[in-house]
């Protein structure tokens, strides 16, 4: 049984967790070009090494961040998302969308 350490619930079976994709910096939706947006949506770090990922502890609906090696499957560190995201992001519709 593979164990993941949930920052909220402690060590739990990996089957309780859901992978949520890599942590990527989102470009500004109001000024981004189509190509840069495609790059943000479809491309991620896919060489072999340590990746930064979103994970969900499904029973408690708790999202957090994990550093994991994508070949050895070693989970190096897990921590709450507020360690990386200090400020709240407010989404406002652009004039074109409104």
């Amino acid at each position, binding site marked *: *049984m*593979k164990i993941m350490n949930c920052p909220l619930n402690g060590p739990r079976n*990996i*089957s309780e967790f*859901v*992978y949520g994709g890599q942590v990527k910096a989102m470009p500004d939706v109001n000024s981004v070009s*189509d*190509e840069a947006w*495609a*790059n943000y949506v*479809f*491309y*991620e770090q*896919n*060489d*072999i090494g340590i*990746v930064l*990922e979103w994970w969900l502890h499904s029973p408690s609906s708790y999202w957090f961040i994990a550093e994991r090696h*994508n*070949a*050895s*499957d070693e989970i190096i560190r897990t921590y709450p998302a507020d360690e990386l995201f200090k400020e709240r992001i407010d989404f406002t519709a652009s004039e074109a969308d409104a």
Partner: protein
Amino acid sequence: MPFGLLKYGLSDNYPFEIEADLPAPCELKPRYDVVIIGGGGHGVATAYYLAKYHGITNVAVLEKGYLGGGNTARNTAVIRSNYLTPEGVKFYSASVKLYEDLSNEFDFNIMYSQRGQLTLAHTDATVRAFRQRAEVNKHFGGRTELIDPCDIAELVPTLNLNPANLPVLAGLWHKDGATARHDAVAWGYAKGATQRGAELHQLTEVTDVVVSKGRVTGVKTTRGNVEAGVVIQAVAGHSAPMARKAGFELPLVAYPLQAMVTLPVKPFLNPLVSSSALHCYVQQTSRGEIVIGGGSDPYPLYNSRASLPLKESLISSAVEMFPFLSEMRLLRQWAGITDMTTDYSPIMGLSPIKNYYIDAGWGTWGFKATPICGKTMAELVASGGKVPELIQPFELARFDRFKQVNEMGATAASH
């Protein structure tokens, strides 16, 4: 005849030279017109068609392990064309047509066996999706139809029609569905390619791709450097790291795909059977083993390790479909690394580097495309970079233009 045998054993003609399927290993030449990275089915098929149809034989296939030892040997050898999109159906149908005649063409038995493939629908939504797939298939000349549970029971009497309390409502019956010996496909192509003059270099890992002024000039390998007129990469699970060596990114995510096989038993299961809701497919090989496969792992990994939760879920689904399988013993299990695209279609053709062509994004659907992939990639090379119509929809640039080919018929877990 003991005396006959003794006489034969003592004669000068014994032991006689058996004609080898592949020529003995040789030194790398300093330059090749075409270098193909990856000696799997796709790579050697490309070399074969380059030699056969285009007379291009100054070709080296560079393989870091051994011939067909990667995903060519790790897939579950399903050949079918019952896809959803017109682009996909046209492409995979052309592949099925080539497969049908491949043993004759090679004069080498690939054990192609057209037994039909049956996918089970357990919800109304899946039945609707299957009806669409059947119609698209028929339109492009495939043999696919929707059948009811009575027909299914007749076709596969041993199947449980209420697996995991998910009653079977209908089935997508694809008569063109087939299986073949996957190793033999790689061997047949390699034999044909090397007999025509192409070189296969095993245990030759490409460590770097040399690019200058937007053109690839050669590759660095563990056995020395080689210049190349054109380079093709066909490396399946490691496509993204390889493209990175050439200096560009591919929109791929690598997931392990696990499968397993039981000890052999008498033939009882003719068609290949998969369930859309249980994410599982079951088939019996010509040797009598039961192959059990299913969906990819739940998160990305460049590792072909086994994991207990996935094995448990695969086995429980297989046992739900064929309850007596619980009595069987597993012979072995394995995994391959699949390079998944977000639209479940491959990435074929041109790359940002002028004379560097890509054959990637084969996720869980690469084996069935081997012949047509080799044929179209060879056409691409021979024409000097003119992309054949059949593979134009699968270009890398589609991601930048939001022109994906949404192929939801690509996996056993079809929607």
